[in-house]
């Protein structure tokens, strides 16, 4: 039996070698092995770890699946690797990008393997947030100049003698370490390591009405559950964040964008046309996100609910 296995493997390997031929094989033009199974037209969407991105994908997936007759595969990839996967054609679309100038230059302008897919319609903003119940007790806490005064409130076991500034997933855009240093704040940046961990921790704090200071971003469904107020940092000016080590200003407001694989954008048919037109508002996205994250609906069910109640929005995407 063992010999048979070895034989089968050897036969399989040589058959594969024959199939692939001995010519050049460009692995940057290679689809997922799970794509297009049984003759279905398949679109592969990349999902990022945060729930907003899951909502985009859920709704796009639902419409592609039920209204356009595609089969949709989703792959969870962080933003930067998603650019790479997008350029190789392993995924067809990235629906929510928070601004990656390096990648954009490399893939869109130089290599032309990725095509811009237009705006998502949502504007993203990163900042430092404290819970609103804390602002009611200490109204002046929302100015960064007063943060040192309150550092002792934010002390935890992880941050030692300093106040804790909680950061999230390693995939997020952050200058917080530089900010703490350059603004001379008596704080320690503690990396939660993933958004899931960060949300869990914020909810625990909120349940006990404990003070916390966290890196957070909008639009985000958690604001509906735990009201938070932004701490004002020195205002953002064009170019104040070019040198990552010397940043001492707030984060900009970023219009979130979509990107498509160049080949798919060109020959993706109705799916590509639909994804280019896909555009909705912050409220729409939050509605779906809340259903997924709080009511624990599956993304599919949440998307169905939203699609059923907002025909005027999505019908525009298909026209």
């Amino acid at each position, binding site marked *: 039996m*063992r010999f048979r296995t070895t034989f089968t493997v050897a036969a399989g390997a040589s058959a594969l070698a024959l199939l692939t031929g001995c010519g050049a094989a460009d*692995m940057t033009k*290679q689809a997922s092995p799970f794509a297009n199974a049984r003759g279905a037209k398949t679109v592969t969407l990349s999902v990022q770890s945060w729930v907003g991105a899951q909502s985009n994908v859920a709704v796009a997936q639902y419409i592609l699946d039920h209204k356009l007759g595609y089969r949709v*595969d989703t792959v969870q990839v962080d933003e*930067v*690797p998603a650019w790479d996967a997008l350029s190789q054609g392993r995924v067809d679309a990235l629906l929510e990008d928070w601004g990656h100038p390096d990648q954009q230059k490399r893939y869109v302008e130089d290599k032309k393997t990725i095509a811009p897919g237009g705006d998502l319609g949502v504007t993203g903003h990163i900042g430092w947030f404290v819970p609103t119940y804390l602002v009611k007790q200490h109204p002046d806490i929302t100015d960064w100049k007063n943060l040192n005064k309150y550092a002792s409130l934010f002390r935890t076991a992880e941050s030692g003698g300093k106040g804790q500034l909680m950061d999230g997933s390693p995939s997020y855009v952050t200058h917080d370490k530089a900010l703490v240093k350059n603004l001379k704040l008596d704080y320690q940046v503690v990396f939660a390591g993933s958004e899931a961990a960060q949300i869990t*921790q914020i909810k625990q704090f909120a349940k006990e009405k404990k003070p916390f200071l966290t890196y957070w971003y909008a639009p985000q469904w958690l604001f509906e559950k735990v009201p938070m107020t932004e701490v004002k940092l020195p205002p953002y000016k064009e170019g104040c964040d070019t040198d990552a080590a010397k940043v001492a200003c707030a984060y900009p407001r970023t219009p979130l964008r979509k990107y498509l694989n160049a080949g798919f954008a060109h020959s993706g048919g109705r799916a590509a046309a639909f994804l280019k037109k896909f555009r909705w508002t912050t409220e729409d996205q939050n509605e779906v996100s809340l259903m997924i994250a709080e009511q*624990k609906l599956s993304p599919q069910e949440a998307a169905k609910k939203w699609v059923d109640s907002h025909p005027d929005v999505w019908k525009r995407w298909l026209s």
Partner: protein
Amino acid sequence: MATLSVPTSGTATPRVLRSRAAGKLLLLALVAAVLAPWAATRWPGAAWPHALTVSLDKPLTTASDWVIDNRDSHPLFLYFLGHVSNAVVLAVRAVYLTLLAAGWAGVTAFGALLAWRVAGPRLAAGTAVAFLACGALGMWIPTMQTLALMVVAVLASVLVGMLLGLAAGLSDRLDRALRPVLDTMQVLPAFAYLLPVVLVFGIGVPAAVLATVVYAAPPMARLTALGLRGADPEVLEAVESLGATRRQRLLTARIPLARKELLLGLNQTIMMALSMAVIAAVIGAGGLGDRVYQALASVDVGAALAAGIPLVLLAVVLDRVTAAAGNGTPAADRPGTIGWPYALAVTVAAALATRLLGALDWPAGWVLGIAEPVDRAVDWMVAHLYSGVPVVGGTADWAGHFTTWILDPLRDGLQWLPWWSVLLVVAALAWLIGTWRTALTAVLAMAAIGVLGVWEPSLDTLSQVLAAVAVTLVLGFATGIAAARSDRVERALRPVLDVFQTMPQFVYLIPVVALFGVGRAPAVAAAVVYALPAVVRITAQGLRQVDPAALESARSLGATGRQQLWQVQLPLARRSLLLAVNQGVVLVLAVVIIGGLVGGGALGYDVAFGLAQGDLATGLVAGAAIVCLGLMLDRVTQPTGRRARKGA
């Protein structure tokens, strides 16, 4: 600080010199007395001296840019790596399409019949139930994707492993060269393998399959070599005297005689590959692992469990079936089995039947939602245990105390120690337990960490590992002793241990955050839960294997139960206990690294950062440091005899 070594040399009276351990220590102390003052004056301060580091940022960034820019044009990619990648994609796709064509009934029938054929009717029923459960949890398609990937990865691992094993089994020189490499590869955390593969192949199935092969092939190679070398010399002599050629000897005697080891190797390879399934999801493996990963991103323990259970079921079934194939008698001698033609015929019939009925996909109505009740249970646990529990305090308070009173002092202590004294301690420990070779490897690995410029985060990770190992050993030895002394306890523990051992490491992460908050404490907690089963099992086995005659004689001398345990069983089981420590350390390290995702920080966070931001300089250096740390920890805890000829 330079005086640290002086008191040690003071104790070296001639009486102590007689003992070997003291001799080793004295020699080390002498070396230290010469080198330490020199090192301390030349490079003062506790941290690794900056002058001795080599920054790899520039070359690594250049390399990564080069790969991205040349991936679609350079001949190396077009004519070699491209084909590898294509072959993997085609193979996975072929298996996947076959599985889909067979439909759920066909796959279940085939799995069950295969299990019946090699392992008997009871496991056949278990296999069928496991497959049906995968479908009932609504995970049929992801299960098939994972299965397709696993089939290809395991076949490739077995092929590579057997080739390497044959080479090592037939040539002494190759054996000496390969053995340390294979030993080392087995103790490294899987997370460290991901980045280099991603650099070359990009995110996706080929990278996932290749990372899995690198991780899963070593046990096959080791056990193949072991089996070939362990063949009975008399049998070989007999075959030789019959005039068989070298090749005939290999094919007709040595390989068949090594059947048991080969099947054990297959078993271990499958288990390693499955344990990689979730980790590989980080680099785009898809399937069940991806479901677990996505569910965890939205803090949905229930959904993570729904995807995790099929993985556990697959693992348990494959483990039992391959283990039974290794131990059992050949099928022909057993009554009541069925032949291959029948098995295939039934499979085809089942597949055709479902196809005709138009129910090739798992019927949508047959899905059982477990996510919601599980989530409710988790919520309840969190709501009631997190804080404010009377008397004992909540889990958050424990985590806080643990961080403040144990993790912080340990980390600060390690970072306060001058770098050369850390090297010295490592050398002393490794030499006392092992040989001068293991000590040298350990010291070099530790020094490499310093040279890479990640001394501080590595010591942070090390402090978490040490704390977690201490907790694991206390709990593990206690439970192991209880299990060894009572059959009932052992029977009750067995299924629990099985499940915990095969559960993907990722599934532990979110509940521990809910209970212990964000930080190093949850990372340590997850590591303890993951490493405990192995420690309990090895301890219990070791204690049970103690020579009954020795116990009997102790009892006849009137020793109480406690005396028997402390003075007979534990000393006689010393070897197993050391092995338990070694295994515990290796497993704990693997999870502490993943703990970077829940606030563990240090090296684990750096690797996650490197993967997430495509920053190879950070990620690869941290990955290399993890490799060195794993190597050092393994060598320091490795008893001398483990590497003897027969050890496996």
